[in-house]
């Protein structure tokens, strides 16, 4: 049992008794309801438990300000307790702490005593007065420190300058850097003491015999001692002499009067591109050399094919030229121009060379495609299949492909054939364009409008031509031309298809014939609008005289009242003719029962031709429209 006395300063002291409960703490309740109690703590156990709860460190700081007597009291208590249970381990720590506290207390007490008694020591506040400094002294110090700082800076600058100078003079490191750059862009290998590079397209699938090995040199080795190095880079490449210079493939499409103009096959060497400066950067030089090699390969391939292919007209290879016939009178010449700068200056370029850039580009593309095919095969490729076979060829065995199909499969178009096809197409397209433009300019009456499709490829393109008349735009006729390599397919408005050869006159005739038909259509349309009756309409009539080309189309119309008949005849060669017959409605009517209506009485009368030139109106349709309107009322 513990008793605590509480003192309160304000209230009169009342003794409050705090007792712990007599009931034992329940440790466990059994299933049968029996309770197991914890045995009550003994006096000493209780005390030690409470003592553990005391935080001595906390008390220490609080007690510092308190009179020492209390601490002494505690120590007394401790002293009482210590001998009481010397062997008890838990109390040992408490004892140590208390002992430590006592020591500190005693020291504090001593210090306080010393300070208080003033027998042994005097404590004074420290004076805060700053020492007075002279201006001259200050300046000197600053000067000194500045000098030190400037020395550090100048030393650093000196070092930087030295490094800079070292870098400029030391080409070895520079050379290695450039070599590293070169290594990233080109294939290099080391053979003994030299570094060799490769600029051919062999690794990209080319099978050209000529190699493109170049040597990598150090500029510092080339420049003599003492001489000033003017070159920008410390690395140089030596390119084999056959790849020096500038080369390109010139493609020309010429109109030649004869079947094949051999006289034009002179050695043309336009120096249009100029030469490479000898001190050009190595990357540029290598690229140009690579281009030379590529052009050589391309030309060699084309020349080989030109000799091998047995066409209807032979291809000719003369010097650096390949001549072939595209169409009669049109010649394609492919020229390899290789300008090394060592040739004598030939005074030519008097005639303008018509270089076809598109075809040159296609040639490059074609060869690159060949390279690509040499390396890459069409993707799904089984591991166990033979390399380089297409999927169709691989399946030829299991699906029992016939001999004929296999032969077709193995046939591939050569570069020359492909470029010839492209040339044919481009020539044909240009011709068509010219014909349509000419017709559009010369023929004003129906307006000709051409819409070129932007979706085309190098072998096919299409154009839609539409005819309209000014003021009557609602009447529209159109035809589509599909321009291929050798022929033009024409799809007309009604879906008929006809094929034309490469001769432009055929196309011109066809368009003019279509114009005639368009005009007949216009007249028919007018008849519908004006209420005239169509008596007959023949698109391709066999009447009348034979014309040079085309057929005439005829229309017969009757006016709403039936008293006027109009005949329209349109032919691409002889032009348009219009005739009108007026029936005079006579006064007397025959009493014949066969004559049922008055109009049958006036069948007689002659057709009179109308001079279309002198009729008033902007165009033919306008003129006929006006005439019809006039005849309606008569």
């Amino acid at each position, binding site marked *: 049992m513990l008793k605590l006395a509480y003192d309160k300063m304000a209230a009169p002291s009342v003794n409050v008794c705090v007792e712990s409960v007599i009931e034992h703490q329940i440790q466990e309740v059994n299933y049968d309801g029996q309770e197991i109690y914890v045995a009550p703590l003994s006096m000493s156990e209780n005390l030690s438990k409470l003592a553990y709860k005391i935080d001595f460190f906390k008390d220490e700081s609080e007690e510092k300000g308190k009179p020492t007597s209390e601490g002494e009291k505690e120590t007394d208590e401790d002293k009482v307790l210590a001998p009481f249970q010397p062997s008890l381990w838990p109390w040992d720590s408490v004892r140590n702490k208390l002992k430590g506290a006592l020591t500190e207390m005693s020291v504090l007490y001593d210090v306080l005593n010393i300070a208080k008694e003033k027998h042994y020591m005097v404590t004074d506040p420290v004076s805060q007065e700053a020492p007075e400094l002279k201006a001259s002294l200050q300046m000197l110090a600053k000067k000194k420190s500045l000098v030190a700082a400037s020395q550090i800076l100048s030393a650093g600058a000196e070092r930087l300058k030295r490094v800079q100078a070292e870098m400029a003079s030391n080409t070895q490191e520079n050379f290695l850097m450039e070599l590293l750059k070169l290594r990233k862009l080109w294939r290099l290998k080391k053979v003994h003491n030299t570094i060799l590079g490769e600029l051919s397209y062999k690794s990209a699938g080319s099978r050209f015999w000529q190699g493109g090995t170049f040597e990598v040199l150090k500029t510092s080795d080339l420049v003599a001692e003492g001489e000033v190095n003017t070159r920008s880079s410390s690395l140089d490449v030596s390119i084999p002499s056959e790849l020096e210079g500038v080369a390109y493939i010139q493609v020309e499409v010429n109109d030649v009067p004869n079947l094949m103009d051999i006289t034009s096959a002179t050695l043309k060497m336009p120096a249009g591109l100029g030469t490479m400066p000898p001190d050009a950067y190595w990357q540029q030089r290598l690229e140009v050399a690579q281009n030379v090699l590529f052009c050589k390969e391309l030309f060699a391939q084309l020349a080989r094919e030109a000799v091998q292919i047995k066409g209807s007209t032979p291809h000719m290879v003369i010097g650096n030229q390949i001549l072939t016939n595209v169409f009669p009178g049109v010649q394609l010449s492919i020229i390899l121009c290789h300008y090394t700068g060592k040739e004598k200056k030939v005074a030519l370029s008097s005639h303008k060379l018509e270089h076809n850039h598109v075809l040159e580009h296609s040639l490059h593309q074609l060869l690159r495609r060949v390279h690509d095919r040499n390396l890459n095969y069409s993707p799904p490729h089984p591991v166990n299949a033979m390399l380089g076979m297409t999927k169709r*060829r691989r399946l*030829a*065995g*299991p*699906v*029992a492909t*016939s*001999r004929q199909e296999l032969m077709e499969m193995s046939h591939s178009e050569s570069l020359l054939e492909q470029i010839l096809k492209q040339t044919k197409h481009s020539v044909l397209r240009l011709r068509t364009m010219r014909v349509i433009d000419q017709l559009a300019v010369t023929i004003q009456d129906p307006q000709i409008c051409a819409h070129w499709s932007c979706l085309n490829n190098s072998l096919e393109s299409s154009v839609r031509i539409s005819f309209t008349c000014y003021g009557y735009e609602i009447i529209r006729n159109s035809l589509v031309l599909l321009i291929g390599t050798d022929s033009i397919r024409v799809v007309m408005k009604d879906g008929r298809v006809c094929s034309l050869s490469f001769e432009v006159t055929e196309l011109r005739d066809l368009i003019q014939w279509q114009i005639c038909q368009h005009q007949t259509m216009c007249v028919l349309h007018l008849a519908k609008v004006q209420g005239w009756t169509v008596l007959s309409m023949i698109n391709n009539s066999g009447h009348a005289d034979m014309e040079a080309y085309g057929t005439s189309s005829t229309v017969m119309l009757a006016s709403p009242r039936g008293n006027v008949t109009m005949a329209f005849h349109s032919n691409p060669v002889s032009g348009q003719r219009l005739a009108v017959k007026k029936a005079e409605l006579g006064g007397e009517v025959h009493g014949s029962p066969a004559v049922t209506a008055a109009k049958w009485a006036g069948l007689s009368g002659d057709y009179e031709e109308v001079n279309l030139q002198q009729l008033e109106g902007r165009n033919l349709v306008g003129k006929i429209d006006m005439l019809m309107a006039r005849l309606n009322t008569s």
Partner: protein
Amino acid sequence: MGVSCVYDYPVPDGRSGAQVVDVLQKQVETMGAYKTGNFHIDCETYQSVMLNSPKTLHILHNSEHPASCFAILDSGNTLVADTLFNGLMSNLKNYYQARKGAKIESKGQRYQLADFVLKIGSVSLAGSFKGILVEVEYSPSLVAMECWNLMKELLQSIVGNIAETPPQTLKPRMDETFTPTMAMLQYLEHFNNFRNKAAMSQPAR
């Protein structure tokens, strides 16, 4: 590849095979056909070694399908494969062995007559002449039923009355799409007949 029918052209007694072939070629040429090269069909027979019930495997090649190799079992199951299959057979020596002296082939001229391809081949078994096989192919069609009457007319003018009915192997498949395998099956049937005849005549000797 169109529909083709193969017929065995009987060699009359007292005439050699070469003579008959000559006559046939002349006949075809008078019909207006022109030569388009040679053709060659061969058949090799393999016998299974390990199995209790022996199985036969025929390997056929046709010059019309140069990339293919036809492997046909007795049951009629067919495998069409690459020519590399030949190499595979040599690796299977322990299971299938080639029957000695059983290589049979048909060789001859190939003729073209408009849409028809005519092939007159003399059959030889281990180097000795055994008979004549006439093949007529109609290229535009793929279903035998649809062009049989047309073919019959031409066939009857060449081989005569044997061509009254379609070939045995083709009969059940008249309305199916014709495949190169069907032609090979016809050849195989004729080859087997020639072999059996040769086997029959041998013990008598």
